[in-house]
């Protein structure tokens, strides 16, 4: 137990009201991003540049869906109905990064999700391994164990695309587009949610600290292709919604929403 964590919370009902809501929203955002990211990986199982990349996408999709399943199930103790979260929400109720609203239309854009957004979710999960909210400890450890090779995949493909001018330029463009939304996803520096969760010992690090950890990890990839990242003072917060951890009032597009909710398979839902 660290000095910041004088006592841990063993269940959601132990968590003070003022913290339970932002913590629940953080877990829901992780769940939504992982579920949708898994769907994006799955779209490349057929059609990735190599057979091996397709198989890697299959494995990463499976990991993300498994993590989504664990996180949605945890939210039951926060007063949510996990089945309704997975199958019955409207687009505006999703807490996903705007990068996941629509399918990436080329492989470099998919790699930007792999290198930047997937890594951001991992950095956030790492900051929960010693959380004051004890039920996270083991679950996050399981998640992180399964995440280990995702970044290796991004690193390998970055090196590969960096070998040609066309590949390097395409990936630099995709990284530059993706970096801003991913940096914002950690939360606004002056916003209540990230600061409260850090102050209360739920998350190890406020949004700026998490951004720095993320940047330290992805910087070699960004540098390799010459991508630029907006400075944190210039991230564009004008339309930012701290509660939904995204910019703008949008959400998953209609096709994405129908698929992620499983609209075609409602008659076959099992407990």
């Amino acid at each position: 137990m660290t000095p910041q964590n004088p006592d841990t919370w063993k269940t959601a009902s132990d968590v003070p009201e003022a913290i339970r809501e932002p913590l629940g929203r953080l877990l829901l955002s992780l769940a939504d991003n992982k579920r949708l990211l898994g769907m994006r990986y799955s779209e490349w199982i057929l059609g990735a540049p190599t057979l091996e990349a397709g198989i890697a996408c299959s494995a990463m999709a499976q990991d993300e869906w498994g993590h989504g399943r664990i996180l949605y199930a945890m939210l039951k103790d926060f007063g949510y109905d996990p089945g309704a979260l997975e199958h019955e929400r409207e687009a505006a109720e999703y807490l996903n990064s705007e990068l996941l609203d629509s399918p990436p239309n080329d492989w470099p854009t998919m790699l930007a999700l792999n290198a930047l957004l997937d890594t951001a979710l991992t950095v956030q999960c790492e900051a929960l391994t010693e959380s004051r909210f004890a039920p996270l400890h083991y679950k996050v450890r399981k998640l992180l164990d399964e995440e280990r090779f995702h970044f290796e995949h991004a690193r390998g493909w970055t090196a590969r695309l960096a070998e040609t001018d066309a590949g390097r330029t395409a990936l630099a463009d995709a990284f530059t587009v993706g970096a801003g939304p991913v940096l914002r996803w950690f939360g606004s520096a002056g916003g209540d949610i990230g600061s409260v969760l850090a102050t209360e010992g739920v998350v190890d690090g406020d949004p700026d600290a998490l951004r720095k950890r993320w940047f330290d990890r992805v910087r070699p990839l960004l540098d390799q292709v010459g991508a630029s990242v907006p400075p944190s003072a210039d991230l564009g917060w004008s339309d930012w919604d701290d509660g939904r951890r995204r910019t703008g009032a949008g959400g998953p597009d209609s096709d994405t929403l129908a698929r992620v909710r499983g609209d075609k398979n409602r008659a076959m839902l099992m407990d």
Partner: protein
Amino acid sequence: MTDLVKIRRGPRADAGYESPREHGMNFAAVLAETIGRHPDLELEIPSWDTPPASIDEAVWRALHEVPDPEFPISLPDLGLVYGVCVEGTTARVTVSFTASACPCVEFIKWDIRDRLLQEEGIEAVEVDVTWDPPWTADRITPRGRRALRRAGVSV
């Protein structure tokens, strides 16, 4: 914290869903067929020298007859069973899985339910899923390691 998953008995009226087992299907057998589990390898079921001292122990022993869907190893020998507790006529079993997105979760739950409902005094089965602590290969028993080696898996 565990995520309670309550397994319903009998047909699910609202969706017209019925347990595949009620149609004579055995998930483990179907999957073994599909993914090519070696047909000559059978589950090694321990022989017990004494009658079970309690109904909890009877349930624990019965779980040794529930195989992993992929390999001829029982769920306890694979280290997936974290706890057994019988309350009245309800058996509550706490399990974990090797991977968070294990595609056999439902199969395994049904197989647990179907085996335990054959035990005298058990009328309902509830399966709790836990990740605390995460499963690792260290949880495999010596008998389980022998079974995996026979199946060609190095552990």
